[in-house]
């Protein structure tokens, strides 16, 4: 079966690992564990339109200028760019990551998610006004790794975009 590399990009502690674990293992662990370097998962989504082996690179969060980030991004077919619904300061970083990804791999698709949607209840959050929405003219998805809301759709959308781009 065809295999594709996908990278998870985003600030420190926005929930990249939680999103991957929710999608791949169907699990959520409230205890926070920092990712050092990179974790690699392999997953074939049984609910996807077309079977595809996804090799998910869950990269340590941080600045877009972080060392090694470029090395980890190289060769990816697509990217998931993640921000935190409870920390608006992580939102501009999403654009930095998008710029880095597109600068290294022009034309490769990406999807954006604002995670921890379950904790944002009651907050005024205008997805269409987030920097990433302004940069891409497309509002990010509001996801929750805790409840699983919009998580499979996020990855399936990216898979579809990868296949549509013939990658």
């Amino acid at each position, binding site marked *: 079966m*065809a*295999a*594709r*590399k996908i990278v998870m990009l985003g600030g420190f502690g926005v929930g990249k690992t939680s999103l991957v674990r929710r999608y791949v293992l169907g699990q959520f662990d409230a205890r926070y564990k920092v990712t050092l*370097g*990179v974790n*690699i*998962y*392999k997953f074939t989504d049984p609910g996807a339109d077309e079977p595809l*082996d996804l*090799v998910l*690179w869950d990269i340590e969060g941080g600045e877009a200028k972080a*060392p*090694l980030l470029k*090395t*980890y991004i*190289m*060769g*990816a*077919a697509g990217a998931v760019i993640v921000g935190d619904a409870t920390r608006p300061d992580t939102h501009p970083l999403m654009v930095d990551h998008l710029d880095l990804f597109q600068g290294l791999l022009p034309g490769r698709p990406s999807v954006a998610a604002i995670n921890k949607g379950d904790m944002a209840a009651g907050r005024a959050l205008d997805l269409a006004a987030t920097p990433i929405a302004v940069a891409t003219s497309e509002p990010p998805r509001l996801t929750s790794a805790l409840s699983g809301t919009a998580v499979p759709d996020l990855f399936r959308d990216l898979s579809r975009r990868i296949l549509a781009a013939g*990658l």
Partner: protein
Amino acid sequence: MPGELPADDAERLRLLLLWREQERLDRLEARILDAAAARGTVREVVVDALKDAQVADARRLAGVIAPAVVSSIHAEIRNSRDMMVDALYPITGRMVSAAVRDAFQRLLIELDRRIAGTLPFERISARIEALMTGKPVAQVLLRRNPSFLATDVLLIHRSTGLLIHREADGAQALDGDVLSGLLTAILGFAADAFGADGAGDVKTLSFGASSVHLAASPALLLALRGEGAAPQAIAATLDGALADLIEAHGAALGDFSGTLDEAAAERIQLDLRALLGLVQALGRPKRKQTGALIMLALLAAGIAGFLGYGWYERSRVAGLEARAHAAVAEVPSARGWPVIVQHRSRDDRVVVSGLVADQASLVALQAALARQLGDQADATGLADAGTDRLAAAVAAAEGKAAAAVTMLRADQQQALTAQEAAWRAALATQDAAATQRLTAVAERLEGLERNVAGAIGMVEQAAGSGLDALGSRFGGALSDLGGALAQLRRELEADIARVAERSEGRASDLASALVDYSRELQTLDARVRPLEDIAADPQRLLAEAVAVAAVFFSDEDVLADPPHTTELVEQLAGLLAEVPGVRLRIVGFSDPTGRAGLNASLSQARADRVRGLLTAAGVAPERLLTVGRATERRLAAGTGPNPRDRRVEFELVRVGEP
């Protein structure tokens, strides 16, 4: 790595350059570990610091603070255990190395001592090699054991970290895609950490006894996992293999994006399988040539001794077998029967087996063998074919068959007689009814004649009494009536005669038909009788079937006519089921093309194939023997291939055959 200093030289160089720093580190370590000394030192430092800070009664305050500071330092040391271990590694590493080296030396000495007590061939050769090379015997033996086991090899697309193909010996716990990603991440990390900028790459990762050996190009990464001490040539082998892979598949792999076409995948799989085999071969130790020469000399001596002994043994056995053949020749009734003479080396006896005609011949042959060979003859494999008993059984069967046919004929004759009587009775009844009807007609005719005569008398009387006129009127008419009656009587008599004649003719035809029928019945009897005999004896039926049956092959062990073979196999299985004591030999043949050894195995394979079919049709496997006779008993002329020679025939296994 090329250009790298040997470990000992590097260590000496490091000591030469850094011995002062090392001594200082040692002194510092000794002081830190001595709590009282540490407290004193810290106190002095704290006192000076407090003096500088103008604190009154600085010494007393320092005495109070010092234990807390020392405790903090100890806690820090505990928390930084890994850093300490790294700092101490140069010292402890050398100590561990020396201890391990010493332990190995003592192990080798102990092994040498124990090996010296025993003298199997392998150890003798190891001792000779040890003497020639000056190494301990144990080291020689250890070197001869496999030292490196390659488990799997992975070809990875470096920029994506995706696995192109993995070739493994057995199941591997870690998923190939995940392993590929991790290896590329590690390489990326190493390049970044060392700022290599493509000038070098990680060549080896090791953990315990396992190691991963890497060869990398900008686009591809070749990783080989294994356990044990890797051979020195592994790095060069991997580099060469990667260069070959790039040369052979560079075009297909350059734009790899997660999938590979089937043909390319198959070629890469073959290449990686070959590489894995090559590395596994590297991991096996090679014998020294001197050892091989000694082995060769010993082998030659052994062969010479074996051949000499073999010649003596063959002569002796030939003498024993000749005496057994002489014993067989002494019994004239055993000639022409299959008697096999064979020497059995296990107990040095001559085994005489096979068939002789009858019980008398068997006894005579056993006696002759006892005279010629005494206890060295084993005649338990001999059996008599029972021709005398067979003749009696055949006579009895013939008697039974003759009685049955006689009875059948009597039944048929009786049935024919009854049928004939019935037909005759029916004819007699028909004839009687016809005669009866004719008699009645005749009687009525006589009555009519009588009436006509009376009338004539009356007319004559009337004429006499003067009625002449009337008489002349009726005289002509009466005369006509008399004529008509006479004609009627003649016709009736003719009818009676025809009926009688016809009845006689039909009876005659019937008798003739019966004679024909009886003759035909006898002819049929003559044809049916032998068939009845065969049908009544399943063993004869089986023998008839086996004599003409054959299975032909189009090529190798491919059946030429599968439907016909299925029919034949079912027929043979059915007959075998009716004759429980009989075994069948399946004999395979081949055409003369190709090597003799190959033809022998091919003919055996054909026999095995047919045996499989018969077993599947319900025949017990122990009743089926197979043999391949290659090109014996050819059916076709010439030396070229001919489908008539590619066949399997059948034989009934002889009574008493082991």
